[in-house]
Every structure is written in structure tokens, then in C-alpha cells.
């Protein structure tokens, strides 16, 4: 059944493809910073630290091999953002692509929003597979013909050509954010979208790039009183008046734009009381939410903090309905993770097509899936060693106790430089895209 998470005992994942350089030396510009499927799943976009966007397109399923889903091949590559310099503040603005969000398709062209720390851009990706030939005044190579040789008239005709994919910037939305943009989200009305930085959320119209509405502002009058920042924001998938934003304190606020122009007063506040047994120096850091995602149904909300994934029912604000521990064995290592900066890593999370399974990344190129219905979870690894096409991924286990079983890996052997921060799930099928530092892995469900 397409899109079914099923029980994890039913679904086996196998390697499909890997994109990116094989070198151990990772060029900083190649570090993948965002991954996103479009609404049909046919296109997969990645953004990197060098400001580039690479779009992969799924090949149509061939009738010869109905068991294999189409491969993803490069469709378009373009430079979305360049490094800039803010002269007033003497600050460099990184070209790193923080987020990509696709617009629902409305005509032949595809549109996506890409953003760096300060500027959002709307890109149009269109195909050209025909070109006019038979001009009267020009040769095929473009040179003008000598007038004296022109003694007939003809109508140029469109002839097929090799497919060319063009990406062109249609809008540039800039100068609206003082702080670093962490999220963009397209509204279900397909007319507006929001962008969020550390202290503010702005609402834009896709057609209008020279002004935006500020809808959330949590900047205190005195910056010395700052206690929390906005870490992520998203529109509700169906209700165009509703959006949520998460904070560094581990709270999520749901706002209704019909209530007021400025949505500083939340409609709902989702917050779980802290467990006093787990209090430590680093409690605040690990409770900071790094990602928030609505379920496709719009009924649930998923949040990711450093150690766990939480599922919230929009109808219950007091506590999450489900909590999944991603890597609880790291709780006793927080001090070292603070020193090597890993504790600041911002992991993302995603839902599968029918909201039955959620996925998030971890260290050592491990990623985790949690089946909500069957209450099962699995740890898998993205590595070229498992890189034979259609080879089934073996579940991995981290040993937490004293005795390490065979095939288990101890916590101290984990490579904290190999982290999976960005993952994406095909909206309809069991195909996932998992980004390691500079490689993109595509896994799919094993079909018999």
C-alpha cells in the first residue's frame, strides 16, 4: 500500500542511490543544509552551504521493471544565494541555504522558495524542449543573413530540442529580517508565506516583494531581558489562518491570524513541565526545539529537541501524546557534547505520507524511525558500505549497558562528526532522502 508505514517488521528499507562526492575531505561549500521533496514527490531539492540548489527528478517507472521505482537524477542546478556583506553592521551574510520550500504546482513550471540568513528568493524552474527554427533574417547560429540573399518568406516553426531546465529568480524578498532567518513556510492559500527569524515572524504575499507584515514580535524592550528566541515556524497544512512557532525554551505557540494583526498573544501554548530529575547545566539547551512539523492531517504537531521527538495533539496543550527517545544514551555525555559543540546541532524531523511513522537523524550517520501505530522503532545507517543497489539495510543498535553485544556499537565509538540533520520523506511513497554531511542517500521500501 503506497505511503503506508506499516509495522516496521513489514517494511524493509533498501539502498537506492547516493549523490555527492566520495572523498573523505569534505569541501565546506558542499555541506548539505536542507532537503525537501515537492508535493508530488517527483522532485527532490537540496540546498548547501555554498548557496547552491540542486534539484533531482524521479525517472518515470519503466514498464520493463515495474518492481523498481524510478531513480532520481539531476534535473537542475543553480546558484541561489551569494555571500553578501552588510556594510552598516560590518557583517558577512552567509550564502548557506537554510530552507527550501516548494509551492504547490499550478502550471507547467515549478516554483520554490529558498532562503539564507537574510533574503528569501522565489525561483521558477521551467522546461524548454522546443526552439524556433527557420528565421528569415538570422542563420541558425544567430548571425544575420545578408539582406540580398533573402528573397522568400517563411514562418519559423518550433522544433524539438534537448531538454533544457531553466531556473530564474522571480522575486527577491529582502531587508525584512534583522536576525537570522530559520524558517519559511508556504500557506495553504498559495498566496502568502511566512518567514521567521530569532525574534520575529513576517507574513509575505508571494507577488509582493517590497513589503511584509510583521505578525509575531517577541523582541523585549530591553534586550538584556531576552530569555527565549523563535527556533522554527510553520503554517497549518489546511487552515490558512493558523500557524505555530517553537521557542528555545521548548514551548510551541499556536496563533490565529484572525484574532489580531499582531499575533503576540498565542491561541494555544504547548508546554511540558520539565522533569526535575533530569535537571542539569544543559537542561535549557537540550530542551530548545530545533524543528516543528505539522502532520499531513493537521491534527498533530511534531517537535524535535536535542534528545527526543514529541508528538502533540493540537487539542491538548499540557503534554505531548507521544515521546520518542532518539539517543537517550547521550544524556550522560552532555558535558562533552557541549565542549565539542554537538549539543547545538539542530536536527530536523519529518512525517511519512500517512502520518504513521516519523523519522529523524542522529550521529554516526544513524537515523531513526518511529512507528506510531505499532510502537516500534528502528535505527538505520547511511553509509556507502551498504551501498549495493537494493541491498537491505540492517538495523543498528547502540549498546548502552556494560556488555556490548556483537554488531552493537558502543557510545564512545560513535562518530559525532557524522551527523544526519536533514531528512525528507516522499509524500506518497516509502522513499526517503537522508543527508549526511555532504552526501544525499535515497532509500526505498523493498518491494517483492
Amino acid at each position, binding site marked *: 500500500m503506497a505511503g503506508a508505514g506499516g509495522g516496521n517488521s513489514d517494511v524493509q528499507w533498501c539502498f537506492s542511490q547516493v549523490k555527492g562526492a566520495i572523498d573523505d575531505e569534505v569541501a565546506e561549500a558542499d555541506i548539505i543544509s536542507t532537503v525537501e521533496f515537492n508535493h508530488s514527490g517527483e522532485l527532490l531539492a537540496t540546498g548547501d552551504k555554498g548557496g547552491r540548489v540542486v534539484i533531482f527528478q524521479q525517472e518515470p517507472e519503466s514498464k520493463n521493471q515495474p518492481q523498481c521505482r524510478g531513480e532520481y537524477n539531476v534535473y537542475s542546478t543553480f546558484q541561489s544565494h551569494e555571500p553578501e556583506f552588510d556594510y552598516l*553592521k560590518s*557583517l*558577512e*551574510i*552567509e550564502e*548557506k541555504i537554510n530552507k527550501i520550500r516548494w509551492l504547490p504546482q499550478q502550471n507547467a513550471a515549478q516554483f520554490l522558495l529558498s532562503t539564507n*540568513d537574510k533574503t528569501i528568493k522565489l525561483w521558477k524552474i521551467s522546461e524548454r524542449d522546443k526552439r524556433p527554427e527557420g528565421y528569415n533574417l538570422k542563420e541558425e547560429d544567430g548571425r544575420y543573413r545578408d539582406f540580398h540573399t533573402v528573397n522568400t518568406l517563411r514562418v519559423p516553426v518550433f522544433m524539438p530540442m534537448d531538454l533544457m531546465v531553466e531556473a530564474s529568480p522571480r522575486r527577491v524578498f529582502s531587508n525584512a529580517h534583522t*536576525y*537570522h532567518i*530559520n524558517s519559511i513556510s508556504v500557506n495553504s492559500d498559495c498566496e502568502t508565506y511566512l518567514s521567521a527569524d*530569532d*525574534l520575529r515572524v513576517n507574513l509575505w504575499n508571494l507577488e509582493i516583494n517590497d513589503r511584509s507584515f510583521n505578525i509575531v514580535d517577541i523582541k523585549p524592550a530591553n*534586550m*538584556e531581558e*531576552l*530569555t*527565549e*528566541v523563535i*527556533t522554527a515556524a510553520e503554517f497549518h497544512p489546511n487552515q490558512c489562518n493558523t500557524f505555530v512557532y517553537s521557542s*528555545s525554551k521548548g514551548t510551541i505557540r499556536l496563533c490565529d491570524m484572525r484574532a489580531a494583526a499582531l499575533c503576540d498573544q498565542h491561541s494555544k501554548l504547548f508546554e511540558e513541565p520539565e522533569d*526535575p530529575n*533530569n*535537571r*542539569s*547545566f*544543559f537542561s*535549557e*539547551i537540550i530542551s*530548545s526545539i530545533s524543528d516543528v512539523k505539522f502532520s499531513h492531517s493537521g491534527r498533530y504537531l511534531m517537535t524535535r529537541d536535542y534528545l527526543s521527538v514529541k508528538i502533540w495533539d493540537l487539542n491538548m496543550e499540557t503534554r505531548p501524546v507521544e515521546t520518542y527517545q532518539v539517543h537517550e544514551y547521550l544524556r*550522560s*555525555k*552532555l*558535558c*562533552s557534547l*557541549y*565542549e*565539542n*559543540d554537538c549539543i*547545538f546541532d539542530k536536527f530536523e524531523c519529518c512525517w511519512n505520507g500517512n502520518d504513521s511513522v516519523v523519522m529523524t537523524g542522529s550521529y554516526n550517520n544513524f537515523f531513526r524511525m518511529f512507528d506510531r501505530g505499532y510502537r516500534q522503532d528502528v535505527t538505520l545507517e547511511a553509509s556507502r558500505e551498504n551501498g549495493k543497489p537494493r541491498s537491505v539495510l540492517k538495523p543498528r543498535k547502540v549498546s548502552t549497558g556494560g556488555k556490548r553485544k556483537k554488531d552493537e556499537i558502543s557510545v564512545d565509538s560513535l562518530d559525532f562528526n557524522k551527523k544526519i540533520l536533514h531528512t525528507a520523506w516522499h509524500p506518497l511513497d516509502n522513499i526517503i532522502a537522508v543527508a549526511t554531511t555532504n552526501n544525499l542517500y535515497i532509500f526505498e521500501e523493498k518491494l517483492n
Partner: protein
Amino acid sequence: MEVNAEARRILAVSISKLYASRTQRGGLRLHRSLLLSLVMRSARDIYHSSRESECQSSEERMDTSSDPEEGQQQPGMPEPQTTLISSEPAQEEPDSADEECEITEDKENLSPTRQSRKRRGKASAAPDFLPIKRARLEPGEERYAAPPSCCRSGAGDSLIALSLNRVIPPPNIHTAYECLHKPHR
């Protein structure tokens, strides 16, 4: 006390991270700076509280012991390690830090809120990641062991001086730290 040493170490690591983040490409990250300042505040609270309890216990000992000691002498104060945290980026720390972290594992999970909030020095109203507009340490001041070069840029960098790789005799760590929260005399 191990808690004291751990708090001091975390404080020093945090300061060096804050300092390093100033030169990061893309500018100071507000979220990261906020989280660092929260950790620093917790560590500072623990550090102050544990020093108070040490002072109290040493005062009790002074009352009962036959030879009275000076208020500044802290018999309970552990000798500072010669390998104090350097101001190098934290990536070079993990190995030694791992071991220390394993030993003081439980101490790390002490609830900071259990400690007394009383502080001896005047608490800084400004968060630590903002430049502190206080009088600078004078280069020739003998009271502090911080080298003159560290005093050039003001109190913010004096915090860095605390974390530099040198041995500072116990009383001076306390007084050097305290002076950052008091007006310079």
C-alpha cells in the same frame, strides 16, 4: 570541591565559545549566544554558591581551630590544574574533557536551582555576552595575576584572561573574578 571545579571549567569553556563566536562568519548568532549565556549563568551560580559554602565552612573551622587563618585563605580550595582550559576553540578539548566529564558525571546533573542564590559580589545586570561597560583592570595592578595584554580590551576580555592557560594562585581567581562584578577601585 569538584562541583566548583566543574562549574569553573564550564564557565571558562562557555566564555571561550562566546569569544570565538564573535569572529564567526555570518555574525553573532542570537540563539547560540543566548544558550551560552544560560549555561554560564548556571555555572556562575553554582560557582558562587559553592564558594559561599566553602567560606562558611572555613569560617567555622577558623572559629574552632587554634591558629586563626586569614579570610582570603581557602584551605578547601583545590589547587588549580596546570592545564587550565585554554582559549583555543573547544574542538581541541574533547579528549581531556571526556575524562573529567566522566568523573564528575553526577555533579553535572546537580540541580543549579537547589543552590543558594546569594552572591558575594555585585551581580552583573547585563548578560555576559554583551560588552560590559565597567572600568578596566589596570595593567600594573599587582593584585591580579592576569597579564597586562589581557587588560587592554576591557572587562569582557578579562573574563578570557581567567581562562587562559596559566596558573593563577587560588585567592586571585576569586578576587579576579569578583572584580568583574564590582566597580574598579
